[in-house]
């Protein structure tokens, strides 16, 4: 019995909690990708770097606040900096839209051309971030590190295994839930949100109904900049901020959006968790959990780690391929918002 409890605690500590936190971050990122896909009709390869840009602004403001001695007590100061990060990211994407994407919209360019354009934008953002904050790893989390530390948990329960719950993980999940709820409310209940869905569904008819396309595009970019910054800051708090890591995040985020069904916000969230759980589950050494759950005679000799962590990106790709083979529209039906 105690063994079973120990096994469950170990599983929660090493798989469930990290995967839920990571899944929330991916879901927020995938929501941004899916919104662009649904409304602007292309896959935005610059999304990972949009996250990096927003997070960079947030990190800079965090340092400024820390320098001034501002703090949120047990919470990370970065939460105060998120709005500034969003402003920075919004300014950058709106400038990009005005000087880059708008031209192609006016030409009624085919989506595939916008995809390639977004790759160019990606490189520019990439360089921009590195010029300002550098290519190094930055940790900017402060405040209380744990809600429950492994030692406290062991002392409390008397179990052999500890369960650590980091502040950033709790903040990640709570923020993700709030942001997603707000986004769904906005898309389904407000006039502007509905006009965005209408535009996504049928551009011509939206125009004939008097919906201004440029306004829809503007609001979309604002929402995407906010989602990207929030996702980026949460990821950075949980792990660390490094421009290149954010660029790499593009892969699991795209996988999440496509697995869930591109253009479908619900799918983006589901996809985020599917990818996160498989990535963590497949690269985790299960021996620790299995030792508790299996009879001693059957205890595994090896680590029972299916793939080493260096291969975690391969996992997203494999799932992506499997879903595209068997359910090309994604788990949830994609295409429109």
């Amino acid at each position: 019995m105690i063994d079973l409890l120990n096994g469950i605690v170990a599983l929660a500590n090493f798989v469930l909690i990290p995967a839920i936190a990571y899944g929330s971050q991916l879901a927020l990122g995938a929501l941004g990708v899916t919104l662009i896909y649904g409304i602007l009709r292309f896959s935005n390869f610059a999304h990972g770097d949009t996250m990096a840009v927003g997070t960079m602004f947030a990190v800079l403001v965090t340092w400024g606040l820390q320098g001034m001695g501002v703090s949120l007590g047990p919470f990370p100061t970065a939460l105060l900096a998120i709005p500034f990060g969003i402003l920075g990211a919004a300014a950058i994407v709106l400038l990009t839209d005005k000087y880059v994407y708008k031209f192609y919209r006016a030409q009624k360019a085919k989506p595939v051309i916008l995809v390639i354009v977004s790759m160019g934008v990606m490189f520019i953002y990439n360089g921009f971030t590195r010029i300002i904050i550098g290519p190094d790893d930055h940790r900017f989390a402060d405040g209380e590190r744990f809600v429950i530390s492994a030692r406290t948990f062991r002392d409390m329960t008397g179990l052999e295994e500890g369960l650590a719950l980091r502040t950033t993980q709790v903040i990640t999940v709570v923020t993700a839930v709030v942001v997603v709820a707000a986004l769904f409310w906005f898309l389904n209940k407000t006039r502007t949100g509905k006009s965005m869905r209408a535009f996504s569904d049928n551009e011509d008819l939206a125009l004939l109904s008097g919906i201004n396309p440029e306004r829809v595009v503007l609001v979309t970019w604002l929402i995407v900049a906010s989602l990207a910054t929030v996702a980026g800051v949460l990821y950075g708090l949980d792990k660390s901020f490094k421009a290149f890591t954010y660029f790499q995040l593009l892969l699991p985020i795209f996988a999440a959006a496509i697995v869930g069904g591109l253009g479908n916000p619900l799918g983006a969230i589901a996809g985020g968790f599917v990818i996160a759980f498989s990535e963590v589950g497949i690269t985790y050494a299960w021996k620790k959990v299995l030792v508790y759950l299996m009879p001693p005679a059957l205890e595994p000799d090896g680590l029972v780690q299916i793939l080493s962590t260096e291969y975690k990106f391969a996992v997203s790709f494999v799932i992506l391929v499997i879903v595209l083979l068997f359910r090309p529209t994604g788990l949830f039906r994609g295409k429109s918002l």
Partner: protein
Amino acid sequence: MSGNPYQDDRGNKDASITNPHGQGTLTASGTQPNPMPGKDGPFLIGENMTGGYGKTGPDILHDCTIAVERGEIAVIVGPNGAGKSTAMKAVFGMLDLREGRVLLDGQDITQLTPQARVRHGMGFVPQTSNIFTSMTVEENLEMGAFIRTDDFRTTMAQVYELFPILREKRNQPAGELSGGQRQQVAVGRALMTQPKVLMLDEPTAGVSPIVMDELFDRIIEVARTGISILMVEQNARQALEIADKGYVLVQGANGYSGTGKDLLANPDVRRSFLGG
């Protein structure tokens, strides 16, 4: 095809990176937001219209005139490829006019974009893709009323009264409705702007004969409320029966025109277009 490299379709079919669904195709001919003073005449008239698609496309309309009076129903009929829909699109500003002009209520709207024409009281129901399929019936109607800042609930109630089935299905996605019901949503959406003129491009395409009669009845009801109706129809005989005015187009030009009854009685029209 169009010679525009930005519209090269190569590699555009990969749905994991591109989303052509619902992409805009509307090309607006107009450039100005406000109408110019015109002259008195019929409520809506497309006068001596000559033009075709694009800047260089061949002329499809040749000196074609279409007019409708307040509260009347005008019907455009004619053989396939006669330019019926094109004439309607020209009136609505989706076509470059090389000659001629469009007047609405005595104002020259030739240079107005389609969306500006909507604001000036024209409602348009395209032949296909005329509803937001992923949105509920009620949301479709709400989107129709997007340009209105006043309370549109009475208009919505009127639409529901006109099409009672829509009230029943108001929380259902419009894409799940039958063909006839979709057309009702489409007409309802256009009515939400409280247009002065309602333009219908083949409203009965693809619906059963019973539903077609029903739709025509509703269209007459709409006209009785003082809204002018301009419509293109395949079912020439039924359409001319309810028409105050009919236009038979032949190769982009006015072939015959007159009241619906006259055209139905005209032996030439009967022989050529109504099957005897």
